[in-house]
């Protein structure tokens, strides 16, 4: 269930209002648009990084706006990509005169709407690049046709760091794409999720079963498996991700267990203990792992494993200090 809402039609707007009220020390509303940006507005001379997508995924996407992170986020309705008009307005709202990068997980609606926003900005002479995240190994054997899920975090982190330190548009874009090339995710779900105002979940998982390879929009998985222990699930996740490991990547990698909204941190730590050992045994040089919520699917129970391989150049971006409502680190 989603318990807290007023009129479900206004869920997004009500959410943005409360979010900005809570975190006005870091973010502000983009005027006349469905989005937020870094408090004080875009920085002159720096590349603007606009992330986004539907809502229901917090801390993706608006939680990742702040110093050293995304410049802004365009916010769609629950599980719905924002309209092209809003991508345009928010893109304009993060433009500091050095060009804008759009970055989001690859879903057809997002691609269409961000592309329409890009066209509008290009007509006004703003140089726009798109860094589309495709980390979900379950979605397709073809890398370019995959969905973007929890791996968004690593790509946004690199884009934000690169833009913040003053890199050119070409460089920011190239670094973001490099991170995506080396990032892989696989997820599992133990329950479906329920949209605000609805009484039925989008899908149900039978007792004793789990869904393998679902997205983060309440879509069911690509297959159903038998429920298993945490250590067995750890093995499954590690096998799925490593079987698709990029061949050209170094051994060092950031690792993330991402909760999908209704799975406890303690459970995820239990899972991570096994994941850590398995990855080490597989020769991965684990760097600053993360366990928590980074891309949720409303109140879905489940989690995903992301591995993002990195060389020294990408590691510097991952280490770069960042301050945002959802994630703050001093390096």
């Amino acid at each position, binding site marked *: 269930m989603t318990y807290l809402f007023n009129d479900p039609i206004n869920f997004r707007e009500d959410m943005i209002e409360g979010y900005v009220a809570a975190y006005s020390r870091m973010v502000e509303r983009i005027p006349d648009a469905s989005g937020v940006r870094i408090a004080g507005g875009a920085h002159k001379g720096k590349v603007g990084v606009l992330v986004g997508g539907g809502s229901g995924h917090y801390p993706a996407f608006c939680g990742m706006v702040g110093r050293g992170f995304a410049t802004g986020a365009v916010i769609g309705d629950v599980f*719905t990509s924002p309209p*092209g008009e*809003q991508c345009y307005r928010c893109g304009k709202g993060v433009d500091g005169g050095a060009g804008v990068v759009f970055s989001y997980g690859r879903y057809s*609606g997002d691609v269409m709407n961000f592309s329409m926003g890009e066209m509008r900005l290009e007509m006004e002479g703003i140089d726009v690049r798109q860094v589309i995240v495709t980390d979900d190994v379950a979605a397709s054997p073809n890398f370019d046709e995959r969905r973007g899920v929890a791996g968004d975090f690593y790509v946004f982190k690199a884009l934000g760091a690169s833009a913040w330190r003053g890199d050119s548009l070409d460089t920011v874009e190239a670094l973001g794409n490099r991170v995506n090339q080396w990032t892989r995710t696989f997820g599992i779900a133990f329950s479906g999720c329920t949209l605000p105002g609805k009484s039925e979940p989008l899908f149900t998982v039978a007792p004793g079963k789990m869904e393998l390879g679902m997205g983060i*929009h*309440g879509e*069911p998985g690509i297959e159903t498996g038998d429920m298993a222990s945490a250590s067995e699930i750890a093995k499954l996740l590690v096998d799925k991700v490593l079987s698709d490991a990029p061949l050209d990547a170094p051994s060092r990698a950031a690792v993330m267990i991402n909760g999908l909204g209704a799975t406890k941190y303690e459970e995820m730590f239990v899972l991570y203990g096994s994941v850590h050992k398995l990855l080490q045994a597989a020769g991965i040089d684990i760097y600053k792992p993360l366990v928590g919520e980074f891309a949720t699917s409303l109140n879905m129970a489940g989690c995903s494993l992301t591995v993002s391989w990195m060389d020294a150049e990408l590691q510097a971006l991952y280490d770069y200090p960042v301050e945002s409502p959802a994630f703050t680190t001093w390096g």
Partner: protein
Amino acid sequence: MAEHAEIAAAALDAALAAILEHEDELGKLDSVAGDGDHGAGMARGFRAAVAADRNGSAGQIIANAGMAFANTAGGASGALVGMFIMSAGAALTDPIDAAKVHAALTKGIEAMVRLGKGQVGEKTMLDTLIPFAAAYGEAAQAGLSVRAAWEQALPAAEAGMKSTAQMIPKRGRSSVLREKSLGTQDPGATSIYYVLAAVGRVLAEHCP
């Protein structure tokens, strides 16, 4: 007979009413392989479409409605349906006859295909729209009126919609699920049929 502009406005109202009537059903179809929000998205789009500027010709009213739809609905369907309505409206010039309606449908489909890169047989809205436009074109060429051609073309839209149940998706979010959606009608193809049927009822009421 009412003015064309009034008929266009009434058709948009009827489309919204039809989508609201079927909103939950469309959501359920979408939840089989998608995220269950298709009905809500279409409702959001048509609410904006009926609230758009209604001054000007039938074509202008429809184009304004399409723009409002695209700016509000969000999602892939918001972009695609919005572009379809906007492009069809922009192509529809007075005085309206069946041949011009067919040309407008064709322009709308072209815009949709350009944006979504789809074709017939991929379990999308196009499986309803393209057979409908083809049948409408034949009826128009045979000299039928705007209304009679619509009536004659509607069964092709219905057959197209139903054919999506046996298709495996190649595009869109549901393409990830592929086999899982077999046996279920495409929600987009279904909502487009409800809209076309609603417009047909308005034409039957207002046109000779």
